[in-house]
């Protein structure tokens, strides 16, 4: 039961992009087309789950030596290395998958949502299975936000805004309205 709660909490109540403000850069950058947002979302889900699976044991190792405070350094290094590794392996072994996700992979290294999830798992005291659920939920939440927003964005693209609001300001205000709609979910847990 607690796993379902974590999942629903991640996707709807505490949506990673719209209410926790992580991963805003890719959210605004890649949400122009439906297709690229699906690709980015899939890549983020994949990297988040794998990064959680790796950093959890790493943290236990740090704990054993009493150097938990090095977790930021250790996590970001592990994630950066892992993303590079996946990219190389994927390019060689699975060209179709690389074609679909490849371009988005390097961009994820510095996506703060990935580091945020791994650190959040530790801060919330989740166990291994809960951490993986949290990572999956956050990845799904990111994809959902990206998909919804790419739909909104394709509609506002051709609208007639005042000159000063064209471009990024209009996008941000649209994001504010999408975020407002997600406030309706608060309190369902």
């Amino acid at each position, binding site marked *: 039961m607690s796993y379902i709660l974590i999942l629903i909490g991640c996707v709807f109540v505490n949506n990673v992009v719209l209410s926790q403000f992580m991963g805003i850069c890719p959210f605004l950058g890649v949400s122009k087309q439906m297709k690229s947002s699906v690709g980015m979302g899939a890549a983020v889900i994949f990297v988040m789950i794998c990064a959680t699976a790796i950093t959890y044991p790493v943290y236990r190792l740090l704990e054993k030596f009493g150097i938990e405070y090095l977790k930021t350094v250790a996590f970001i290094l592990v994630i950066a290395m892992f993303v590079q590794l996946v990219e190389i392996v994927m390019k060689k072994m699975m060209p179709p998958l690389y074609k679909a996700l490849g371009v988005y992979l390097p961009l994820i290294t510095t996506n*703060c949502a990935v580091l945020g999830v791994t650190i959040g798992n530790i801060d919330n005291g989740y166990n291994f299975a809960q951490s993986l659920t949290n990572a999956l939920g956050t990845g799904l939440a990111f994809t959902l936000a990206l998909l919804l927003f790419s739909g909104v964005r394709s509609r506002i693209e051709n609208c007639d805004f005042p000159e000063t609001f*064209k471009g990024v300001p209009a996008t941000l205000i649209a994001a504010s309205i999408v975020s407002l709609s997600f406030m309706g979910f608060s309190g369902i847990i």
Partner: protein
Amino acid sequence: MADKHSNWYEFTKGLIKQNPTLVTLLGMCPTLAVTTMAKNGIGMGLATTFVLVCSNLVISLLKNVIPKAVRLPCFIVVIAGFVTLIEFLMKGYIPELYDSLGVFLSLITVNCIILGRAEAFASKNKILPSILDGLGMGLGFTLSLFCMGSVREILGTGSWMGITIPVISENPMTVFIMPAGGFFVLGCLIALVNKIAKKKPPQEISCSSCPNAAMCKGQCRDEKEACE
């Protein structure tokens, strides 16, 4: 325009002309997340400034030692080290700020401003300009965070830095301290800056001076401008 290479120019360009948040649109995540109060904005801004100055200094010193192929991991390690340092300092001396910034303090590590300046400036310039560049950019970031925090705090709670604002405090518009208000205020501020600067608004989130610029070749429009 002032001499392009004078130290004074390196310092002032980050404050207004290339303000990281409002003009080049970098580091949006902390900008939106921690600015529910003006005080938090200043705290976050100064913490980022500290990391930016220190990492620019170290990276500029090491620029001939670090091999080009592995420069990004090297930069990240330097930055993460300083982030850990500031986490300790803040936990020890200002614990209430540490609590209210939460996970975003650790996330300074992946703030695009810091990696971006390391990549675009510190790894190509001498020590003094690098420090000044970091200081200017950091203070510019602090300034925009402070503006955002002030707007949201005044409208959302009816007080500012502990001062109660007479009329608004009776009926504060709570939506402004909620996530939706963050997006809204940032959108309006960027539009305001566009209006004042009378320039064409940025159509895209620029990936200039973004750490990923090396990987997404050709997609960055004004990468040159940031480097030279």
